[in-house]
C-alpha cells in the first residue's frame, strides 16, 4: 500500500504538484522533470539526445532537430528553477556516438547548462561510458540524502529510489476520446520519471515491465499544460 503521500497543487500560480518520497519533499514539474528544493537539484531522465541522427544513419532521416528541442526544454527548466545541481538519470544520449554527432549550437547549449552548477551524468544502458568532451561528472548511480538516483530501477525495491529508463506514459479514455500522456509513476517508495527527450517515446504503465516494479497500487502523475494530474494506476488503460 502506498505510504503516506500527498499530492496537491502546491502552488496555484505555477501549478506543480508535491510528493513525498522517503521523507524528501519533491516537486513534479509539469514539463516532466523533478525538482528537489532541499538540495536545489533538478533531476531529468532519458534525454536520448541525437536519436534523430542515430536513425538517419540507418536510412531513416528523422528531422534533425530533436536534440535542439530537448535542450531548449532543459534550458527553460533550468531558467525556472535555477538549480545548484542538474542531474540526468541516464540514456542522456541515444547511443555511444551521440555526443560526437552534436551540432555546434547544441554543444554550446550543453556547455552553458553546465556553467555555474554541478552537472551529473548518470550512466544508462544507451550511454554506459562517459561521453568525451562533456562537462560534468559521470556516475553509475548517486546517493543523495535519503534518495538513490539511478538509471534503471533495481530488481529489489528500495525506498527512496528515483529512476528513469522506462519512459512511463498513461492512457485514459475520457468521453470517448483516448488520451496518452507522459507521466511520473510512484507508489510512495520509488519514483520513475517520464522521459524528457523529444523523440524518447513511451511505455504504458500497465505494461508488465513497468507495473511489476511496484508491488501493488501506484499512481500516475500525468503531465499537463500547467500542472500534473494524479490518476490511480488501475484507472489507466493498457495501450490500444
Amino acid at each position, binding site marked *: 500500500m502506498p505510504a503516506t503521500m500527498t499530492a496537491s497543487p502546491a502552488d496555484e500560480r505555477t501549478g506543480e504538484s508535491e510528493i513525498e518520497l522517503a521523507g524528501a519533499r519533491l516537486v513534479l514539474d509539469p514539463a516532466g522533470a523533478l525538482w528537489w528544493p532541499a538540495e536545489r537539484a533538478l533531476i531529468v531522465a532519458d534525454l536520448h539526445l541525437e536519436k*534523430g*541522427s542515430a536513425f*538517419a*544513419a540507418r*536510412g*531513416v*532521416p*528523422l*528531422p*534533425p*532537430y*530533436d536534440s*535542439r*528541442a530537448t535542450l531548449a526544454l532543459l534550458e527553460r527548466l533550468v531558467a525556472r528553477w535555477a538549480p545548484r545541481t542538474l542531474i540526468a538519470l541516464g540514456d542522456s544520449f541515444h547511443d555511444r556516438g551521440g555526443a560526437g554527432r552534436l*551540432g555546434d549550437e547544441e554543444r554550446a547549449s550543453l556547455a552553458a547548462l553546465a556553467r555555474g552548477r554541478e552537472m551529473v551524468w548518470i550512466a544508462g544502458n544507451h550511454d554506459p561510458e562517459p561521453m568525451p568532451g562533456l562537462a560534468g561528472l559521470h556516475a553509475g548511480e548517486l546517493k543523495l540524502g535519503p534518495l538513490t538516483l539511478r538509471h534503471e530501477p533495481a530488481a529489489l525495491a528500495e525506498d527512496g529510489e528515483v529512476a528513469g529508463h*522506462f*519512459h512511463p506514459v498513461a492512457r*485514459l*479514455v*475520457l*468521453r*470517448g*476520446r*483516448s*488520451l496518452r*500522456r507522459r507521466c511520473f509513476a510512484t507508489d510512495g517508495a520509488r519514483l520513475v520519471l517520464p*522521459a524528457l527527450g*523529444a*523523440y*524518447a*517515446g*513511451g*511505455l504504458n504503465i500497465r*505494461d*508488465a*515491465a513497468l507495473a511489476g516494479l511496484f508491488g501493488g497500487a501506484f499512481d500516475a502523475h*500525468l503531465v*499537463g*499544460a*500547467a500542472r500534473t*494530474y*494524479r*490518476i*490511480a494506476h488501475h*484507472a489507466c*488503460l*493498457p*495501450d*490500444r
Partner: protein
Amino acid sequence: MPDIDAAPDDLLPEPFRRWFAGRGWAPRAHQLELLAQARAGRSTLLIAPTGAGKTLAGFLPSLVELAGRPVPRNSARPPGLHTLYISPLKALAVDVARNLERPAQEMGLAVRIETRTGDTPASRRQRQRRDPPDILLTTPEQIALLLASDDAEPLFADLKRIVLDELHALAGSKRGDLLSLGLARLRAIAPMAQTVGLSATVADPDTLRRWLVPQRGNGEMGELVIADPGAAPDLSMLDSAAHVPWAGHTARHSLKEIYGLIERHTTTLVFVNTRMQAELLFQELWHINDANFPIALHHGSLDVSQRRRVEAAMGEGRLKAVVCTSSLDLGIDWGAVDLVVNVGAPKGSSRLMQRIGRANHRLDEPSRAVLVPANRFEVLECRAALEAVRAGAQDSAVVRSGALDVLAQHVLGMACATPFDADELFAEVTSAEPYADLLRADFDDVVGFNANGGYALRAYERFARIRRMKDGRWRVANPQVAQQYRLNVGTIVESTMLKVRLASAKSRFGGRVLGEVEEYFVETMSPGDTFVFAGEVLEYLTIVENEVRVARTSAKEPRVPSYAGGKFPLSTFLAARVRALLSEPARWASLPGQVRDWLELQKLRSRLPGREDLLVETFPRGGRYHLVAYPFEGRLAHQTLGMLLTRRLDRAGLHPLGFMANDYALVIYGVSDMSLAIAQGRLSLDALFDADMLGDDLEEWLAESALMKRTFRQCAVIAGLIERRFPGKEKNSRQVTMSTDLVYDVLRRHEPGHVLLRAARADAATGLLDIRRLSDMLTRIRGRIDHLALSRVSPLAVPVMLEIGREMVAGGASDALLAEAEDELIREAMRAGDDDSEPGR
C-alpha cells in the same frame, strides 16, 4: 464516328467477325470506334456503363493487332510485352484475365495472357521479366515495382498499348498520382504506346482525357468515345409508412420494408455507408429473417477468406442478399443482381450511380434501385440525389494537384531503376496530368528530401540515400536503399489493424479470428464494453499483442462507441441541391408528408436556410445556450469549423462547452447566453465566421489535432521518411515506443515549411479536415449571415441536437477532462468509504 455497317470488314478481321456472329452478337458501336481510334494511333477515353462490353472494347485493338502479328522466327528476339492492363483491384485483374482467355481461345489466337499481383509466386514474377507475356494484367503498385528495376527498359520497350480500367476510381487519389507517374515513365520508355482509359460516367471527362497523353503545357487530350448509356435506371425512394426518425443512421424503421424488397427480388445488394451500419443492419435483418434467406455480410474489416467466400457464393447465385459497404462499389460483375438498395444518404450522386450500376448488367433493361433514408435530413438528400441521377448530373471532382509525398516515392524509385538527370525527370514528371503544374522548386525539394531528408539544417549529408554523381545525375547511395524502396512502395497506408479473435471457453486464447478493426476504434473502448462485429454482439476482453480478444455475449443492445455516422461527407454538388430544395417550398410536394410538415413548422417557428445565406439560430435549452448553424458542407468541414468557432468563442469569454456536427448543421453549446451577447453587441457573428479563422486559429489547432497527426503519418510513410513498420506501431511488451506524433511536433516547430508538412497540409485541405470546402463556404456567406434569436429549439435543429453527448468536446479541453477525471476518481473514492459504513446497502 465510323460507319458500323461498312466498317467491320475493314476494322474487324475474319476470326473476330466469326466469333461475334457465332454468339449471335454484333460488335457495339463504341467497340468499333475504339478500333478505329487505335488504327489512327490515338489514345482514347471510353465512357460506358457497366455491362456495355467496356473491357472487351479496351482489349479488342490489342487482340486484333496480336492476331495479325507475323509468326516470329526462332532466331528472332522474342517479342516483348505488347499490352499492359492496370486495374485498381487485384481481383478485377484476375477476373478480366479469365474473361479474356475465353475469346482468345475460341478464336484460336496464339496470345499469352498473364496476371501479376502481390499473390503471384516469385518464380513466375522472375520469369515474367525475362520472358514477358503478350498481355499482362496488373495493379498500380506492381507497375511502380517493375519500373524501379534496372530491367524496366527492355521489359517495356516494345509496349504498344496500355489499358487503364476504372480510371475514374483512380484519378484524383494518391494511388492515381502514383499510376500517373508510372505512366509518364512508360511513355518515356515506349513513346509510341497508346493509352486507353475506361471509365464510368464522370462530370469532367477532360481531366481523364488529359491523363492519357503527355502534358506539354497546352492541356493536351486523348480522344473521347461515349457509349450508349442504355436504359435509364428505375430509381425510387422508399416512402416508409413508419415514422421517419429525427436522427441516427440505422434505418431501423424501414427494416420490414427492406426485407420485403429482398423477398420480392432474386438477388439484392444492400449498400450502407459504414462498416458499423453494415454490422447493425445485417444483424437486424437476421432477427426478422423468418424465411431463412441466405443473406450475407461484406465489408473491408472482415477476414479476407470470409469476403472471398461471400464473393464466390454471389458469383454462383447462391445468395439472396448481401449487406455491404463501398467494399463492393467496384468489382466483378454479377449478372444475377436485380435490385440495389442504398440505405442512408448517398452522399454524392456519382457514388450512387456507380452503386446503381451494380444491378442488372443487361443494357436494354433498367437497373433498379431503391433509396432508404435513415432520418429526415436524409430524406431531403435522397430526394436531391434522385433528381440529380435522373438529370444525369455528376459531382464535380475536387480540384487537387499530385501529392508531393507520392512524388517523393516515385523519384526514389526512378533512382533505383537507373541514375536520373533532374532536368529530364522534371520534364517527364510534369507530363503526367496531376503534376502538370508542379513547380520546379517543389520538385527540387522532393529530390532534396530523398537525398538527405531535405532539412534546412544540413546534418545528414553523410547519411544520404541518393547521391549526385560527377556527371550531375543522381543514383542510389547503396543497395539497401533500393531494398527499402521495394518494401515501402504503394500509397495505401492502412491505419493499424488489430485482429479480432474469439477467446475460447477453456482459455482466453486460441479461438477463431473474426476479422480486423482499426486501432483507433479499440482505443475508445474499455474492457467489458460491447460492440457489434461480424454479425455478433461481442464483449471486449483484452488486448494481446496485435489481437483484440473478445467473447460472445448475451447482451442485446451493444454499446457502439465512436460512431462516425456516414463515412463519406456530403458532396458539395449534392449539398447545393439540398439547399435549393429547402428554399423552394413549391418543390416539397415530392417529399413524404411528415417531412413536409417538419419543414412547414420550421418556416413558422424560425426560417428556412436560404440558397446562398447561412442560417444561424441561438436559443436556450436545458440550462445551456446553443448556437446552431446550417452550412450543409459535410461533417468533416463542420468538425473543423466547430473546433475553430469554439476556440474563438472561448477567447471571447463565452465559455463554450462543446460542439457537435453532422453533414448538414453544427451546434455549439455553452453556459453563456449567446443571444444576449449578440443583442448587446459583445458578439458579432460576422466576426465569428470571418474567414481569417483559417489563419492563426487554424495553425494553432493543427498543432494539436489528432487528425493532422494522422495525415502527417500517412505522408511520412508514403514519402519513405519512416518505414511502414516504424517502431511504435509494432508494440512488443517491454519495448519503449516512439510515434510519428513526436516527429510531427519537432518538425512543425523547427521547420514548418518542410516539404512533408506542405504535403500534409495539402492533404488536410481536401482530406479529413476539408479545409478548402470550409474556406469556400466562409467566403460565400460573408455578409450573408441570417441570425435568429429563438426562445426554444427549432424543428430543423432537432437532428443535430440529438447527437450532442455522443462524443466530442471543445478542442484543447484535454486538460479540463483530466481534471474532471481526477475529481471523479476522488469522489468515487469518497463514496466507497460511505458505502462501507452502511452495510445495509
